[in-house]
């Protein structure tokens, strides 16, 4: 049986040639993401903003205008939007801050106002205290993850690898937040779960490359760093493509068939896998050069005195 080979054997792609452009491009993307975050902000879900979320399903196609009319009288500033099927409507109500029992009362009033013609698919109510705690927990988790992975790589490799890995990781997290800010996608707890998973996947990818770099450093003691990194990347290329391939297949399946509830998560994963793969090649690896990775006494400076500029 003929085997399918996605990646030709013995590729010799000169990745490092474009490293300066790639790093600049990445820096721009990061700056853009941070700017979008600062200016547009994230579309926080009720997990972090507090408030009430109700998903209702009507008998026939939903008449959002009529529903809005019924809720207008309550003066709650309810926001309605279609969601998934044309019979489903998402109702969002802002956090009620006058005492903890206020949100409960609001849910009751909404139920009364909408009457019995609607099916309540889900009702979520998060008070101010809990939403504050969830924001804290989410941020702590992401920061701790970055730290833990830095420490782990530091242990297993030299410090330059640790820095490279974490910068690549931070880049992935920033760009993911950026795309959420840009597209206005809902940012809630499952998004944080996606970010942590992306972190894990990205480091996973980076470590595979680093492992090969470390092996080659021992094997080819006199090879210039640029070439050695290129070699390592080419050697791991088929694995990278294949694993990203299978993971993307799985996540695409999740995105298309998994339903609207986790579509935000699936989209984040798709984005994260692509960005994570890119960052392993064009951030984690080139940074090793910029950090003067010395090996067995042969000094490597930033590349200015190398004989051949590729």
């Amino acid at each position, binding site marked *: 049986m003929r085997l399918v080979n996605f990646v030709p054997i013995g590729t010799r792609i000169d990745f490092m040639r474009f490293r300066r452009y790639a790093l600049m491009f990445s820096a721009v993307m990061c700056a853009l993401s941070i700017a979008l975050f600062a200016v547009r902000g994230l579309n926080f879900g009720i997990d972090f903003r507090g408030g009430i979320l109700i998903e209702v399903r009507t008998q026939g196609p939903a008449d959002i205008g009529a529903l809005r009319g019924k809720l207008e009288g309550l003066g709650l500033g309810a926001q309605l939007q279609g969601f998934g099927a044309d019979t489903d409507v998402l109702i969002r109500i802002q956090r009620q801050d006058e005492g*903890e029992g206020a949100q409960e009362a609001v849910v009751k009033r909404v139920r009364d106002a909408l009457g019995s013609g609607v099916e309540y698919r889900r009702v*979520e*109510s998060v008070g101010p205290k809990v939403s504050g705690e969830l924001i804290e927990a989410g941020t702590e988790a992401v920061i701790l993850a970055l730290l833990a992975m830095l420490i782990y790589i530091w242990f297993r490799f030299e410090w330059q690898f640790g820095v490279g890995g974490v910068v690549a990781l931070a880049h992935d997290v920033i760009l993911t937040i950026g795309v959420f800010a840009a597209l206005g996608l809902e940012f809630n707890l499952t998004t944080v779960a996606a970010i942590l998973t992306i972190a*894990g996947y990205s480091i996973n990818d980076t*470590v595979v490359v680093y492992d090969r770099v470390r092996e080659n450093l021992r094997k080819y003691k006199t090879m210039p760093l640029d070439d050695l990194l290129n070699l390592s990347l080419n050697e791991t290329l088929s694995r990278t493509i294949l694993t990203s391939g299978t993971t993307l297949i799985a996540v695409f399946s*999740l995105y298309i068939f998994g*339903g609207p*509830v986790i579509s935000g998560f699936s989209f984040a994963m798709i984005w994260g896998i692509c960005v994570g793969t890119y960052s392993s090649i064009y951030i984690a690896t080139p940074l090793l050069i910029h950090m003067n990775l010395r090996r067995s006494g042969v000094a490597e400076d930033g590349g200015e005195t190398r004989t051949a500029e590729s």
Partner: protein
Amino acid sequence: MVYIARWKVVLILLLSILGLAFATPNALKREVADALPAWLPHKQVSLGLDLQGGSYLLIEVKVEDAIRERLNSLIDSIRDALTPRGGRIGYTGLQRIQNGATVTIRNEADVSRARELLRSATQGFDFESDGRRFVIRPTEQMTREWRSAVVEQSLEIIRRRIDELGLREPDIQRQGQDRILVQLPGVGNPQEIKDIIGKTAKMTFHLLDESASQQDVAGGRVPPGTVLMPSDSEIGPDGKPVMYPVRTRVMVSGETLVDAQPTIEQGRPVVSFRFDSLGARRFGDATRRNVGKPFAIVLDNKVISAPVIREPILGGNGIISGNFTTESARHLSLLLRSGALPVPLTFVEERTVGPGLGADSIRAGAIACIIGLVAVVVFMGLVYGLFGVFANIALFVNLASILALLSVLQATLTLPGIAGIVLTIGMAVDANVLIFERIREEQRAGRTPISAMDAGYQRAFSTIIDANLTTLIAGILLYIFGSGPVRGFAVTLSIGIVTSMFSAIMLTRLMTVHWLRRMKPKVLPI
């Protein structure tokens, strides 16, 4: 690594079979699985509320109220201590402060006697004195015990109330310092339950103040020792609830009730109640002394009934009649039987998923899983041929093991948890890809089949460990910091990493190595 010791082979096969075995109950219908004997694997995966539908209620207990009450009784103790038989000690400024009480003694001469008296009256508390001023505080441990006691008591009362409602498998547990988590599978609308759980239900019996006239009541003027309380159900001509002048002194309190049942009297639903002997005596005394006068039955500072005492009630039995429906009479009886909550409760987080969405989520998750699985299996077969098939078999065992572990540990499977499984499908092959790519490389470099396979497994091993451990770190952190459905994702992701490492390093290796020894090929078909 191409030689696997016999005992290891047995162990690997055994674990794989166990994985498959413990996953199979999930293929059976619930009733069938429950009926299996205990020595067979019979546990099914426990579905989260977002998949089976149900309510998640996070309740906060207002412990500050309880602490304030205890500080108030601390103040009472101080007051009593400074008024002993031997003569009252002059003091001033007896009040509650932030987390304790303070008092200042008038005369310098009394200070040492006061210290003695106060010390013995407030044993166990932190005691500070500064000249004539004393500050008495509960210790850290004391405060912790108070908090705990209030939360435990509330939890017990909530449990009693929920038990009476006869719900399917409710899960009630303490969360953190002052919160209680109630999970109710199958409950699509928790409103009624929230009303019952959340109601303090403190019942007291008072006399009404007869000296207050209609105008006084309307104007809001009441003599001391009386307070105006609204009626629970009666609305006056001005559209507002009718107000009653209720004497603050409690005649009998609901703490002494031993039973309450809904019944019908004269065709209308009422609640009949029974006091214990102490309550019965108090009630008997109070009714005997006040025949012909009206009294108020107050629930949570609202008057639910205000009948006239027609004759002394000595037996300790009584009837509360008012504007009851069958439903509300049943609820009130339930509340009285379970006892009053010591402090108010608030619902700080609520997530309810209806059965419709739950079923849809399961279906969506399952479809995504199956399609993902088929796609990956085809992919692996195309790229790696025979070895791809081995990897696929290992993938199936992997998935079965995840299900098996979830079933045995009774960890909850949520929708993000299913996403975690789909993700594992994609990432599990990574270990195999690393190994196979390495073997390919070694073979291309000129090694013999056995040597190539050996080197492949050898070299790839540490990479696999490094890579998977980092994802495991993410999974563990997510478990610690996550809650609810996100935790479910962390669980499946972490379990998935462990099982895929096992299946790639152990099971696939077993199959490939076995095939290699049997077929002794000249070249590895990879």
